[in-house]
């Protein structure tokens, strides 16, 4: 046993509990990246604001204080928490319908105020929890239960690019789009999430990380094909990379 060393273990910030997420869903990965980042930053008392969407139960999987927001209102709720508890790390974890449809106003204004919070935006191009309806980020031609012939841009417009939108505002200090469809990208995603949390810890201001994610169940694909679809279809439309880092 003497030569063995632990090279990987479950993050102490994660609960000993299986998630309810479907096979191939990347929410669990994003949860893990947040938990690891908090561990590494020595943060034990973060507060996560859960969205309405598949991740509504995020606080059941992480050893954090959790506040569940109404649909789309997470940035407003996070604002309220952070303005009282300015020394706590406050994370707004949101999906695409939550952040870009019903909660677009809250999203833009929290960013525009430069709230010292971290927004983790999980973009899987569909409404997962409600059973696969069209999202603001659903790809052109993508079939969903409310765009059964595929998303038609003439009728419903084109997908909204969140990072680019937020990048028009002055106050955010950090904006990055990452993906978690393979190992290399997961490592980059981790780096971005950790940076976004560090920014908050250091009081720098509003940080936004968009994570391209999968929803094999509602996309009607196997996990492997879902990762391929993300890479082939989503990344060309949602280019990965850093949009803003005030230190650069």
């Amino acid at each position, binding site marked *: 046993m003497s030569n063995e060393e632990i090279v990987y273990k479950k993050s102490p910030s994660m609960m000993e509990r299986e998630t309810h997420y479907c096979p191939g869903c990347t929410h669990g990965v994003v949860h893990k990246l947040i938990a690891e980042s908090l561990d590494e930053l020595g943060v034990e008392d973060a507060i996560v604001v859960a969205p309405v969407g598949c991740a509504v139960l995020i606080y059941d999987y992480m050893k954090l204080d959790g506040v569940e*927001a109404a649909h789309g209102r997470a940035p407003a709720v*996070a604002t*309220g928490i952070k303005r009282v508890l300015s020394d706590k790390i406050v994370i707004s974890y949101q999906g695409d319908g939550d952040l870009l449809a019903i909660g677009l*106003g809250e999203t833009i204004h929290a960013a525009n105020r430069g709230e010292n919070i971290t927004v983790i935006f999980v973009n899987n191009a569909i409404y997962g929890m409600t059973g696969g309806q069209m999202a603001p980020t659903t790809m052109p031609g993508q079939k969903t239960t409310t765009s059964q012939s595929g998303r038609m841009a003439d009728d419903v417009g084109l997908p909204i690019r969140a990072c680019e939108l937020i990048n028009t505002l002055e106050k955010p200090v950090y904006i990055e789009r990452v993906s978690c469809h393979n190992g290399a990208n997961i490592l980059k995603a981790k780096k971005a999430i950790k940076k976004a949390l560090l920014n908050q810890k250091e009081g720098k201001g509003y940080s936004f990380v968009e994570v391209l994610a999968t929803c094999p169940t509602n996309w009607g694909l196997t996990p492997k094909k879902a990762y391929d679809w993300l890479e082939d279809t989503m990344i060309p439309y949602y280019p990965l990379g850093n949009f803003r880092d005030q230190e650069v």
Partner: protein
Amino acid sequence: MSDKILMKGNEAAAEAAIIAGCRYYFGYPITPQNEIPEYMSKRLPEVGGTFIQAESETAAINMVFGASSTGARSMTSSSSPGISLKQEGISYLAAAQLPCVVINVSRGGPGLGNIAGSQGDYFQSTRGGGHGDYRTIVLAPYNCQELADLTLEAFDLADEYRMVVLILADGFLGQMSEPVVLPEPSGKKFNKDWAVGIGRKNKVASLILSPEDGLTKHNYVLKEVYDKVETEVRKYEEYMLDDADYLLCAYGSSARICKQAITELRNKGIKVGYFRPITLWPFPYDELLNASKGKKKILTVEMSLGQMVEDVKLAVNGSIPVDFYGIPGGMIPTPEAIIERVESYE
């Protein structure tokens, strides 16, 4: 007299909130309550608090949700159409048992309506404008002093029962200036070990999917609180009822008109008094029933088409006739109209 200050109702409410220890205000402009956010934007930074002019009513109530989930005293205010928008948040606050204070300086409706005072929001206030099985404590002041006193008390009630407390004022009361003696804080302390950010890994949530009867059980937990409030929090005022033949029932600004009508009716030899509910929820049903015993008739007066009158009828349950006089759309009843109606009973 030196301790009296001539204050606008809206400003008296705002200052009372600060005295109560409220340090977080989130709101959105709408007439006729604008003096509340304006006052807060100036005063809160002076006392180390936070004022945010939110992007919407919806955002404002959800900022309150966030602040309240930390255990901090927070509030918002608005007027009728804005309160409609806050109903989503109020339902969530009620579900999560978060205390907060919401002031409605109501105006004429439906829709955008007008900006005059109105009592068209009684149903919205007392029947729950949002979804689900919940209650909010509803306090209805009738002058600037009471608006200040009840705002202060609202924070204690909110913390004691972990409920949303709604102050139902109206545009007349919000805009009116009267001498006010600012109230003293009660000094009561409340246990807030449910809050986030206190190192307990607490959850503030309203979604209960499992077990199957989890939400049902939670609803019964809420009901227990509501039952307690119904027995412990009932406020009302009786005025000249002892020898009265007729009972006027009115709240808020309408009650003031009734008070004037009572003086004039008594000058004419007609014995009349009033019963003024101050808590609209819980409604003082038993107390009204008792007060109505031996009277010939009740006249309910409202600045609406008739909303509280339904509770009045529930209270007396057919034991005496209940008449209604009201005027909707931001108009205020004249004492003459009330006098004429009561004289017609003779």
